[in-house]
């Protein structure tokens, strides 16, 4: 029942208290995407400015628990200035970090298991994002941690379908 220190790492609390890239970007040129967790009411708004397949700027709005808000803040810091491909790689690697552990919960405790597709970066390569790994010990909170990442993925999908339709 304990193990709170695994959940509330200092770096997570730091991002919660001093969130990075908080704010808005004018739409257009930016894209605004909303993510919502109907079960707990957590809400993340991602403003995404992509030019030449580079995430030039990203801003975060919304409200929610420390895990959802710090994960959004850490995500914004991790993808800003990266290429869209790199951002997608981070998304799948982050979600893999969550789901690998999700499989092991309630099982025999081993962390082996099939590597989910797209997990090209192991947790130790994710920098400070790896601090969120402890969340998987608290299954109810996993969706808090992944909310902003799913929202970013939705934004990138919208952008790529926009550019696909404008190219055709």
């Amino acid at each position, binding site marked *: *029942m304990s193990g709170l220190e695994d959940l509330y790492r200092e770096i997570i609390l730091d991002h919660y208290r001093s969130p990075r890239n908080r704010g808005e970007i004018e739409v257009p040129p930016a894209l605004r995407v909303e993510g919502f967790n109907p079960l707990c009411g957590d809400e993340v708004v991602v403003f995404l400015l992509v030019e030449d397949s580079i995430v030039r700027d990203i801003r975060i709005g919304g409200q929610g628990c420390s895990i959802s808000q710090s994960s959004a803040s850490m995500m914004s810091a991790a993808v800003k200035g990266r290429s869209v491909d790199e951002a997608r790689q981070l998304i799948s690697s982050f979600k893999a970090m969550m789901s690998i552990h999700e499989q092991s919960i309630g099982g025999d405790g081993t962390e082996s298991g099939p590597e989910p597709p797209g997990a090209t970066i192991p947790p130790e390569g994710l920098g400070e994002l790896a601090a969120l790994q402890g969340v998987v010990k608290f299954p109810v909170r996993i969706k808090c941690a992944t909310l902003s990442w799913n929202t970013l993925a939705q934004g990138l999908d919208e952008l790529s379908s926009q550019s696909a339709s404008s190219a055709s």
Partner: protein
Amino acid sequence: MAATGAPERTGLGLETGRALDAAALRRDFPLLERRRSDGRRITYLDSAASSQHPRQVLEAMDHYYETTHANVHRGVYAIAEEATRRYEAARVRIGTFVGARAPSREIVFTKNATEALNLVAQSYGRRLLPEGKAVLLTEMEHHANLVPWLMLSQERGTPLRYLPLDERYHLDLSRLDELVDGAGIVAVSAMSNVLGTVNDLRPVIEAAHDAGALVVVDGSQLVPHRVVDVTALGADFLAFTGHKMLGPTGIGVLWAREELLEEMPAWLGGGEMIRDVRLDGFTPNDIPWKFEAGTPPIAEAIGLGAAVEYLQAVGMESIAAHERALTRRALEVLDDRHGADVTVYGPPADDPNRGGVISIGYRGIHPHDLAQVLDAEGVCVRAGHHCAKPLMRRLGVPATARASLYLYNDDDDVLALSDALAKAGELFG
């Protein structure tokens, strides 16, 4: 803590007003005897979501499964008759507990209170509520007493109106006469599952009946904690659920006046609810079985009957008095120790129309984080919107942390909550 003065009527007229010994009662609840890995006890403060079970309830269900399980109202053999007898005896006990005039005919077993409320909306609402008549609800309703009416409104265009909340967290009845005019149904909670407010139903019922409207009472939060007498109250429908009153999950109750149940069409179709079935139609069964399609939750009904027996043995007056005193104590401890760090969303400690549901905010810490830290201290509270999103919007918060009290809680639980809040404060600074 014993109640004084003339005792109110309890279900079976058992002795009332005895002081309640929560520590002794807790020994009846196996789950509350469980120790955490560090040897500390569990502080269970989430009975408004679901209460724990005394051995007497678990044993009644075990005994049924071990000795008399058979389908009810079907077999002619002895154990089937015994199962039917026990199932129907539970119905009568539960009906008597809430003051039904004809307990054997006026109690319909459902899956939960939600299904009971859907039954009223789907049967009475769809077929008997006159076209154009409104349904009057309140801003503090649980989704279970909102969504069935929203569905009815979507289907039939039924106008919905809402009694607002005042600044004291009570219903604002100043426009009651105006709002009830043209309503065919008034559906209102007896006690808020978020605020702890116990609603004064008498003026609402009087105004509704004067306007020709029927009154549906959501008793999910009040029936487990206070004496509720439908006959004295003059309500038309009462919905409540087993698992918030020491009973098992999977069993709920709709009480309705006999003549209303007679008039209402069947809702769910299947076995048990029919008298005759032909290839071109069917004849429904008598009440209450007309509303109990398929094999019912037999063990659960028997378990709920045993739960009611337990509550009656303790005495509903004693339970109410215990909870009043403990609620007052909890609010005082929170205020003394935490002062302005705690925001209570509900009536103050000295408000007599207040139950043991305490919704709080603490130092701006998100309720999910708060509940997580409290859990690490062995304190179980609910964090979230409590299935009352319109009320959350009215309060201007996305969620609250909610502690709720019952007969087995005591001073140690209150102090454990207060200590755990301080820990959360340290962590989130």
